[in-house]
């Protein structure tokens, strides 16, 4: 905009030069605020990667990810230990996938029930009850998991499976420990259930009502409508929700840290103790020498990138499924 050079006296309608500068300044302020998100994220990634670099350098990135021996050194200035994070990556993936195995069918069922079967007055209540599971702090899950769930429910069920013919398979074989991959997977399943349910509900709600009504008009039963119209129509949403749940599961920390058993022996069994990426970070942080902390930072960096890839894929899928607003409030 050209600066005003008229000679007539300014009228009341004319903006002052201060007023004209206000908008660009406002733009600058909000731009800086928006940029702060990028700055914070970049600072976190760069700082952790630099600090973790000696470990990546000594082990090689592939060696770090695939090595199976973790022997923390005590040096303050150089890398003397052996750092192979595979047992932790294995534990994280194992409990996450077992958790998804429970959580995804449950979430689909709950979403179908809430959207299609429950009377409309009950829908909101059901939805917010499930959301309540997401509000419970992780450390409370850890507490109740340790003193109640694993003693009264998970270990007995695990023992039952191990004693049944399934127990002959190595995966389900004894012994059944109280703190195990199985306990960790169970608590994870409960914790990721709300987000998967919420996304499934959104996806189901977006199925065109005409198609549902057309299926009913052709004589389909309620189950047939759900099975053959609603679920196939929202398949992308279900996959996206599952991936977001996986992202949550990979990053969950406190509840896992006290339920997985913190064993370095990465057993093939489900009911045996192990360790996960997040749990090894919080459980060994306080006792680590500087070089051990670099190694934990290296696990953190690896975890960040794995979670980021999963989340980015999830968001692409969910967006494509026609969901625009984020699930930020969840």
């Amino acid at each position: 905009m050209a600066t005003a050079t008229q000679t007539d006296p300014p009228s009341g309608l004319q903006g002052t030069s201060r007023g004209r500068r206000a908008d660009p300044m406002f733009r600058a302020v909000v731009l800086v605020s928006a940029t702060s998100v990028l700055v914070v994220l970049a600072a976190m990634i760069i700082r952790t990667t630099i600090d973790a670099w000696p470990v990546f350098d000594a082990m090689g990135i592939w060696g770090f990810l695939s090595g199976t021996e973790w022997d923390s050194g005590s040096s303050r200035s150089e890398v003397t230990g052996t750092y192979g994070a595979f047992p932790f990556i294995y534990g994280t993936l194992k409990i996450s996938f077992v958790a998804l195995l429970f959580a995804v069918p449950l979430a689909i069922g709950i979403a179908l029930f809430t959207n299609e079967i429950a009377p409309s007055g009950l829908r909101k209540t059901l939805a917010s009850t499930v959301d309540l599971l997401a509000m419970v702090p992780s450390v409370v899950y850890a507490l109740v998991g340790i003193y109640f769930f694993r003693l009264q429910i998970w270990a007995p069920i695990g023992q039952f499976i191990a004693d049944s013919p399934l127990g002959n398979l190595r995966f389900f074989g004894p012994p059944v420990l109280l703190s195990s991959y199985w306990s960790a997977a169970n608590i994870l399943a409960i914790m990721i259930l709300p987000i998967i349910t919420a996304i499934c509900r959104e996806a189901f709600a977006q199925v065109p009502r005409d198609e549902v009504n057309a299926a009913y008009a052709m004589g389909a039963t309620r189950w047939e409508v759900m099975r053959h119209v609603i679920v196939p129509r929202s398949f992308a949403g279900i996959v996206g929700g599952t991936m977001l749940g996986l992202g949550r599961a990979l990053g969950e920390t406190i509840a896992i840290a006290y339920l997985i058993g913190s064993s370095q022996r990465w057993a093939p069994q489900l009911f045996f103790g192990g360790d996960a990426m997040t749990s090894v970070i919080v459980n060994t942080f306080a006792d680590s020498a500087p070089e051990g902390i670099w190694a934990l930072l290296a696990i953190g960096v690896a975890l960040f990138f794995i979670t980021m890839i999963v989340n980015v894929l999830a968001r692409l899928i969910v967006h494509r499924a026609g969901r625009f607003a984020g699930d930020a409030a969840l």
Partner: protein
Amino acid sequence: MSVETPVRPSSPADRPSLSEKTPNVRRRELVSRVMTVVLGLTVLAAIIPLVLLLWQVFINALPALSLEFITQVEPLSYREEGGGYLHGIVGTLYMTGIAALVTIPLGILAAIYLTEYGGGAYANIVRFFTDVMTGTPSVFVGLAVYALLVSGAGGLGLGFGTLAGATALGILMLPIVVRSTEEMLRLVPEDLKNASYGLGARRWQTALRVTLPAAAPGITTGAILAVARGAGETAPLILTALGAREVIGSLWGRPQADVGLLMVDGFNQPFQAGIDRAWAGGFTLIAIVLILSIVARFVARKSQV
């Protein structure tokens, strides 16, 4: 679609009445009914753990729950009964409060950028990375803040303490505030903004005095939910606040206490008194989070947009 057409009878006379059900229809209806029950059971499978959890927290918290619990600090020995989590509650509120004071205005301004100037590629990049940040594992944020602020090698060397903990919580809250505020600002009708422009208001005046107040209840709801999320976090605080056994007022230099951290210390010990206090701490955390979310819902109901 696997709905088979029934075989048509030859003459109208032996055609069964429409209300008569063939065995096939009967089977399909039965399947539908059974599946309705199965879906109902999945809902129970989610509600039963929730009820068990709340029930367990409630009955186990009772022994240690009293006024003392929020007015006194924990005794030095985990064997000793009595005392409370005053230092933890103070620390949690202190760190969450600082985080909220910085994060909420910053997040709202960032969201204004995304809605007012959000058409371009840069805004999309910001939006994308905000989403990435939403999914960042909290323990990674803890590690990063440790490396940036706490550690002396390469970081600022502030040491464990309030500021480091608050920063970690703030980083976890920021993307939630940005995205929920953006959603709410988008709901404000275009007409309202145009009316403001029509009266000669500038862009910043419209954004701050028209759009923002119109979306205020929704924004508040999002902000409160973000605070609730931050108040319940423990993992990043292990790496940044570290924990303390007394009420800490200083911003840095001294490790800060937190309810979650005290719970972890308490339930890791084999002493009943410490475990009882951990349960009471869990009760406190759930109470804080629930009260915040009820307030959030109450505010949301006032929303006009």
